[in-house]
Structure formats: C-alpha cells, structure tokens
C-alpha cells in the first residue's frame, strides 16, 4: 500500500517539476524581451530590483540554507566594484572578462578569511563578518593606493541603462541556476545538515569546513559580481558608498521581509523594499521609520516572511478544501 502511495506522489510531482523548469527560463525571456519597451525609470527600478535580488539570493544561500548569518555583504560587494575598476582602468580588460574576474576577487577574499571566520560559530560568526566589512571599509578610506576616501573613476564610459539591465538580468539568471543546484541537489542536503547541527554532521562523515567554504566562496563570488555591476553603473566609486553598511542592511531586510530560506523570499522582499522606497522617495525620514516598523512586525508575526505567510495561508486553504 505504501508503494502505491509513493507512486501517486511521484506522478503528481512530475508535472509540477516540468512546469517549474519551464517557468523560470520563460520568466527571464519575458523580462529580457521587455527591455526595449521599458522607460528609463522602469529600467532604473528594474536594475535595482535585479541587483538586490541577486545579493539577497546570495545572502539567502549563506544564511538561510547554510546557517552562516553574515553581515559582511558590503565587503565582498565593495571588493567587486574596486576589482572591476582596476581591471578596466589598469589592464583594459573587456567587461565580459572583468565582471566575472571581479567576482573571483571577492571569492578569493572569502577564501583568505575563511579559516579565521569559520572558527567563529553562530552569533560570533555574524559579528566577525561585520568586523570584516568595517575593516575593509576603513582600509579603503585610509589607504591611498586605491584612491583613498575620494575613490576612483572608471576610465571608460559605462554602458547604457538598457545594457546594464540586461547584464543584471543575466547575472540573476546565473544566480538562480546556482541556487537551484545548491538547494535542490544532494549538495543541499549536506548544506542543511551542516546548518542544523555541525557536530552531528561531522559524526556522519560530512566535512563541515569544506561545505561551508563552498557556499561562502560561491556567495561571495555572486556578491562581488553584483558589486562590480553597481560600480560599472555609477562610473565612479568611493569607499563610503561601495563598502557602506546600507548594502548589508538592505539585503538583510529584503530576506527577512521576503522569507528566510525560501526560494521566492528574496524576489518578493526586493520588490517590496524597492517599491516602498519609491513610494516614499520624497519622505526619507518616514521611509526609514516605516521600514523599521515593518521589520519588527514581520519578525514578530511572520518569522517566515511574506512568502511564508502566503504559504501558510495556502496550506490552510488546501486543508479546508480537503
């Protein structure tokens, strides 16, 4: 009897799987196809959402799936932006090479600090990464080799808004693919095992350091490319903006509002946060206060974020129906 149950479960799951496989590429194709029709304002907002979703996905991979709650987003984001500027200015690297290489630079930073930060667990890891972000920011401000506090200019003109939008879309597509592999494959089982109980995972042969390093490097790479893209868009970078804590905080609030450890969380959260900031663009003080209030409410009443709330509601509906 259990065998028949299993079979029906598989059969009903199969079409869903196919639908999901098709839906994502289709969505990306539509977003890309829309590009020529969008106004500058829409492209601007679209770029921002895409960039933030990328960052949030990367952070979600670390924190939601890997249990590595990092406050070091800004460090990897900033390094990416500086690496891109250096690669383009000094070596004249084409963008197609410079963007991924900028991500590699961030990944190398992650690799370099991994031994130190992985010695810290839980909250201590969080504080450690925050210290890392602050340290890199202060270094960039005070060290004159990379333009010091005034920053650097990109020697070539940044590409147009439409091109940037498409690059950001491409980056998100890549991020989504990475996330799908990391959260659906057998690697995700090892990752979640390490998240739930590192010691117990080690006792069944999982090497926690290796697993954590893989996601840390992967997430840092994505954050680095995102930073490079932001640097490319601005054409001029300075340490206060690129290494600013607001990147870290924005990403955090997006994931919390959207839903931690849930696939749709970052997208919903980013749309919500960007939408709110646009609505209240003329009232910056109100915007900040309101974001704070919303965060408190979400943490208190919907720990799984907006997506979690909808899921719970759908589950209740489904139960009522049956």
């Amino acid at each position, binding site marked *: 009897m*259990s065998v028949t149950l299993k079979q029906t479960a598989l059969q009903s799951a199969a079409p869903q799987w196919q639908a999901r496989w098709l839906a994502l590429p289709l969505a990306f194709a539509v977003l890309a196809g829309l590009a020529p029709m969008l106004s500058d304002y829409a492209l601007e907002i679209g770029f921002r959402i895409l960039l933030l979703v990328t960052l949030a996905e990367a952070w979600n991979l670390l924190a939601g799936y890997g249990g590595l709650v990092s406050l070091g987003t800004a460090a990897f984001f900033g390094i990416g932006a500086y690496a891109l500027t250096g690669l383009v200015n000094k070596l004249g690297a084409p963008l197609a090479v410079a963007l991924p290489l900028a991500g590699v630079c961030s990944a190398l930073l992650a690799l370099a600090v991994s031994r130190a930060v992985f010695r810290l667990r839980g909250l201590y890891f969080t504080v450690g990464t925050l210290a890392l972000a602050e340290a890199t920011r202060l270094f960039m401000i005070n060290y004159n080799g990379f333009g010091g506090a005034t920053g650097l200019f990109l020697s070539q003109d940044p590409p147009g808004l439409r091109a940037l939008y498409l690059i950001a879309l491409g980056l998100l597509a890549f991020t989504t693919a990475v996330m799908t592999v990391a959260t659906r494959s*057998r*690697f995700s*089982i*090892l990752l*979640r*095992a390490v*998240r*739930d*109980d590192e*010691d*117990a*995972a*080690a*006792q*069944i*042969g*999982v*090497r*926690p350091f290796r697993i954590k390093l893989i996601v840390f490097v992967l997430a840092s790479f994505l954050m680095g490319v995102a930073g490079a893209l932001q640097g490319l868009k601005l054409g001029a970078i300075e340490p206060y903006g690129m290494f600013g804590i607001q990147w870290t905080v924005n990403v955090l609030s997006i994931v919390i509002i959207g839903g931690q450890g849930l696939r749709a969380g970052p997208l919903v959260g980013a749309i919500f946060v960007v939408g709110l900031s646009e609505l209240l663009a003329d009232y910056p003080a109100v915007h900040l206060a309101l974001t704070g209030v919303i965060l408190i409410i979400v943490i208190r009443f919907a720990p799984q974020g907006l997506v979690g709330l909808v899921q719970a509601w759908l589950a209740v509906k489904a139960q009522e129906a049956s």
Partner: protein
Amino acid sequence: MSDMRLPIVEATPLLRANGLVKRFGGVVATDKVSLTVARGEVLGIIGPNGAGKSTLIGLLGGALTPSEGTVEFDGVDVSGWQAAERARRGIGRTYQIPRPFLDMTVRENLLAARFSLHPFDPRARAHEACDRILERTGLADAAHLSARALPLLRRKRLEVARALALNPKLLLLDEVGAGLVDAEVSELIELIQSLRRDVEGIVIIEHVLRVVRECCERLVVLNFGRTLAQGLTADVLASDEVAAVYLGTAQDRSKSPPAADKSTVAAPVANALSALVTQSPTRADTHPLLELRDIHAGYGQARVLNGVDLTVRAGQVIAILGTNGAGKTTLAKVISGAIRPTAGQMRVDGADVTRSPAHEIARLGLSQCMEGRRIFATLSVEENLLLAARGIAAPERAQRLDHVYALFHDLKERRSISGTSMSGGQQQMLAIGRALMSRPRLVLFDEISLGLAPVVMDRLYDALAELRRAGLTMLIVEQDVERALALADEVHVMEHGRIALSGTARAIRDDPRLRHLYIGTAD
C-alpha cells in the same frame, strides 16, 4: 595521518584505546581508560551517571580530542583525526540526547550520511539504501516527516538509523534503550543482534540491563572516569563491587521490599518534607483535587488522547503506565496546560481550568517535573530552584531551599555550578527539587528514571517515597512498572490514548492484562 596502513593480521582488534585521558579544565572526565573491541564483538560500557561514559564515546568517535592516550581503529592511529574523517573511516556514533537535523526529513537525515560518503551514487540506489535502513529501524512510515515531528524515542531510532547510513565498521550506541518498555527493548535487542552481521563491532552504553545482559560479550565498568571492572558480562554483573556503585537493588528487586514500605527516614528530613507540601484545604473532600473528563488532545492532525477520564484525590499517589506512544506525556502536557485539549473538561477543586494557561494552573498548586528534566543551562543549581519560588518572601524562600537541600545533599554541594553541568541523576534531583519549590499540592513526575543508573533510580524513588509519607499528592508517569507499582495507591494503564485498565496497585500487579499490554515482560 599515515597512509601506510599496517597489514591487518588476525590479532589486530577493530578498536584499541590506550590510556585515554580527557580533562575539562581541572576536571578529569576520563582517566587512563584502555579498552579493545575485537572483530565481531559487542562491548558494553556501564557505570553510574557522570562516570564519563559519554565522554569516552566522544573520544572514540572524534567529537573530543584526548588530552593523553591514543585511539587505534582498524590498525591505524586515529587519535588526531577529526570526527568527519573517523566517520568516513567507519566509526558511526549516536548521541545520547538525539541530535537529528531537525529541519530535514527523516530520509534526508540518512541521505546526508550517504551522500557525504558517496557523492555520485545514483539517486535511486541511495534512496533504496536509506529506505532499507529505515525499514529495519522501524521508521519507514516516517521517511517523509520532518525530524522535528518525531517524539523523543523515535528520534533515538533516527540516531541509530543515521549512524547505520554511514555503513560503519564500528557502531557506538549511547543509551539507545532508555525509555523503552519491555516489548520495545526486545525489538532493540533483536536489532542489535541482527546488526552483528553488518557491523564488525559494537560498543553499547546502556542502563537498561536487559540489553547489556543479552547483547554484550564483555563489559567495562566506569566510575569517576576510571575503569572499575572489566570482564565477561556475567562475571561483571555478578561482582559485589559493581553492585555497590551501579546496580543497587536492580539485580534482586523481587527480594527487596517495595521502596514505599521503608520507614527509616531521619526526623529532620521528614519535617523538611512536610514543609514543602501543601496539605489540601478541606473542601477538597467534596471535590477531587484534579479531575479530567473525556479529554481529547493532540498535535495538529495527530490525535493522541481519545477520551481520558482521571480523578486524583488529595493525598493519593497515582501511577500512569503504558507503552510509548500511548499518550502519557501528552496527558502530562494537558494537565500542565502546555497543550489545550480539543474536547473534554479539566477541573481543579471543582473549578473548570480547561482553557487556563500553564502559569495559572501552576498557581493553583499543580507542579510538573517534566520529561527530559528541562534544566535551565545558563542558571546555577540554586537559581534553577529559586526560579520556581518567585514572589515568595525571602525568609520563606530560603527555608524551602534548605528543605530541598535536606532532601538532596548533592544539590547543596553543587549549588553554584551550572544546572546542566551535573550528572544526569543530579539533574533529575534538581528537576524534582524545582518542582517542590513552589510548595505544590500535586506534582506530576514524568519519566524521572529515564536514562539513570539503577542505583540512582533507587535514590530518587526513596525520595518519592518520603514525599508520599509527607502527604504529597503525586501523579507518576513511569516506564519502570515495578517501581511505579511499589509506590502507587492506584494505577491506570493507558493504551491508544485511553485508559485501558485501572485499579489498585495490588490488583493491577496480578492482572494478566498488564502483562498483555507490556508483551515481553519475561522476568
């Protein structure tokens, strides 16, 4: 890490520990312990709580690095190896307090072990291998459930299943039998016996003597971190020395008088106890202290209690027996107000408290000694105790504290250390003491003997007998039928969320239906 593996000759034991020492700060938890596990052997490690048994498992499994000494596994010195490397080499362990990956399904818990060893195993084969283990350990029906949904005892099974998914050569089982009724113990013994074919050696830490007696060829007895005795199982269990530090009356319980009949309590202790017990007001004569009528309760979709009726009068000692999953702990949770019944009524002194939150029920004088002790780890022993007597005048509070210390001397000596750094038996004393600090009228003791050495159980049940004499009303949920029957006036046996059998302790003891409910009660 030498890759030069020694040629394995016949004589190489599967595991050899030489002079293992583990110090935590100034405390020596393991002191020069040496042992070997031969291929095909099942070795038992017994000893009182706090003797360093779990530390030893940690040292063998790699969770802890020894301060001195070596561990050789399969002819290779693995002393410096990380836990993960030892696991990959073939050492599987379970945790005494289960540590499943809570937010993963049961099958995924096993797959983690499988995929860490064979990352490129075909999916179907990995699933099949895991399902086979789940089938064997009786978890097949739970494969899709999240591990969080499993109750304690099924989590223990998951511990074993997860260790087996590693396909280990050596299996370290840390108290997997705790809390099982006889029928389940028989199942466990059968499982261990069947594992002999798949595993080259097993090390068992266990307080359930039947498991030790029927599974282990040899025993090592630890006491204060040292090896007290070592030898063939029958010889060790027969030794007087072991009986003194560990077995207590467990060996010949039939001969010893029931704990409740002992009447040698020092007068000050007796006085101290009556000061901790609130005698019920006279109107309790008209109304029972606690009354449950047709209680239904459960967790979400799962119905656990299907109409329980129970009446507790002041001064009574009532034991609730039943197999695991019968609903005993759920009943305890309903009484404490931790979960609300979906139907039925609960009355205290005739007043309806069915919908009352837990703190209001506690204020009526109902106190709980919860399963799993629930000691606050960040608080000291004394703080744990005082917590239960908040809002009481300081002199009165100090007095109650003294009374609890008079009952359990161990606690007084350890008053300022963290509550969870004590041995299991002392923690259970703390949990009992904490339940008494509120000067309750009724205390519910839920599985207080779980995971304790027989000699410690003796002490706890002596304390309960003293409390009974002091007039405390008690509800005792217990797996150890003999101990419960010896103490209780009235016994209820639960089955499938209902009370299937009730009567006086004397009548129930001879009732064939009790035997029937606990199939396998051989001796």
